């Protein structure tokens, strides 16, 4: 599927003609057969594109652990986020997590000191970094 936006102020025929011209160009490139195309008007020409409904955003804490087998290899573990873990100063304020926080330390220690491994059965060595993600 391909989608584009036209400038305002032209007639429906102008828009359909422009689409037909583009179809001729795109079809050989994609190897597809164009089965349908259409021009859709918004309520007003100046209406901005509106976001569609989606699931709610859930902040999570993402932890990256180094692996024991090879340098610069990592495993990812995400947990619910406690806002008090988030750094409040420095360049990573509002994004990075405080790895020295006692609760964070308890969590990371339990991961590295336990029987956890990455999806390929490689042991986790130590926590490398942690930050906030906003999952939907």
């Amino acid at each position, binding site marked *: 599927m391909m989608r584009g936006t036209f400038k305002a102020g032209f007639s429906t025929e102008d828009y359909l003609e422009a689409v037909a011209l583009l179809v001729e160009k795109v079809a050989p490139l994609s190897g597809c057969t164009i089965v349908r195309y259409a021009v859709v008007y918004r309520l007003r020409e100046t209406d901005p594109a509106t976001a569609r409904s989606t699931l709610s955003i859930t*902040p*999570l804490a*993402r932890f*990256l652990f180094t692996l024991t087998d090879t340098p*610069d*290899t*990592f*495993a*990812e573990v*995400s947990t619910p986020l406690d806002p008090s873990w988030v750094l409040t100063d420095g*360049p*990573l304020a*509002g*994004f*990075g997590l405080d790895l020295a926080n006692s609760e964070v330390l308890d969590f990371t220690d339990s991961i590295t000191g336990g029987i956890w491994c*990455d*999806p*390929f059965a490689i042991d986790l060595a130590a926590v*490398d*970094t*942690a*930050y*906030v*993600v*906003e*999952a*939907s």
Partner: protein
Amino acid sequence: MRYELPEDYPSGNCVFLSVDIRLLPIIGARLSALLEPRLWVADGYQTGYRAITEVLAQMTALCSSNLIQEIRDFRGVKPEFESTPVDERTSDMYNSLNDSYAKMLELRGIMDDGWFSDTYTTLKDVVQVTRGLDQTNAVGMWDTVKDLIITSSSGASILTNIADLLSDVGETAVEGGLLTALIAIEASNAAIIQQQTLVQASMFTTLDNILRALRGETAPEDNILQAIRGDVEADADRNVVELLI
């Protein structure tokens, strides 16, 4: 169709992407989808997982900030901002390349004040002056040394040469020039000693001739003084001169 990384991964060719930190939680969350096994071919999942987690681990690396700090460290902070905390420093508190260039020129020093631009001392100039062997410094001294060694100068001319060397500021006011002057003086001393040796030899010859004249053709069996004074030795009441008279 599923993802599969090319055989040449990792290629070692990387892009430098600056992302505002406020955008990272969203991008980071979207990248999570790439950790799903269903997106990868069965044999490529581990490689893909490793690749994506490596990217995720770099999201707090602050490479831009580190790079900027590295560049600032290289530039060096201006003296008036040394007490400013690093986090509060701005780019203009660090030396520019022009500042560094000006300092380098200052270290080199001006050799000639030009009407329109100055001529700065080069390393070649410094080396040449230090060695004292270049074409523009100490040439006169080396010529003097050569003359002292090759020709038999008089003592007066040697002293004159030394005086000239030490008074020639243009030749001696450099380290190499002073070294050359020292060599010249040593050479002069050697020439003076040589001349003294020649004079001494000439005096020995003269004395020998005088003694030959006194003793005649046949060398006396006793010494000349005994022949002059006779058998009676001189004492407190008479001397050789009185005896002869």
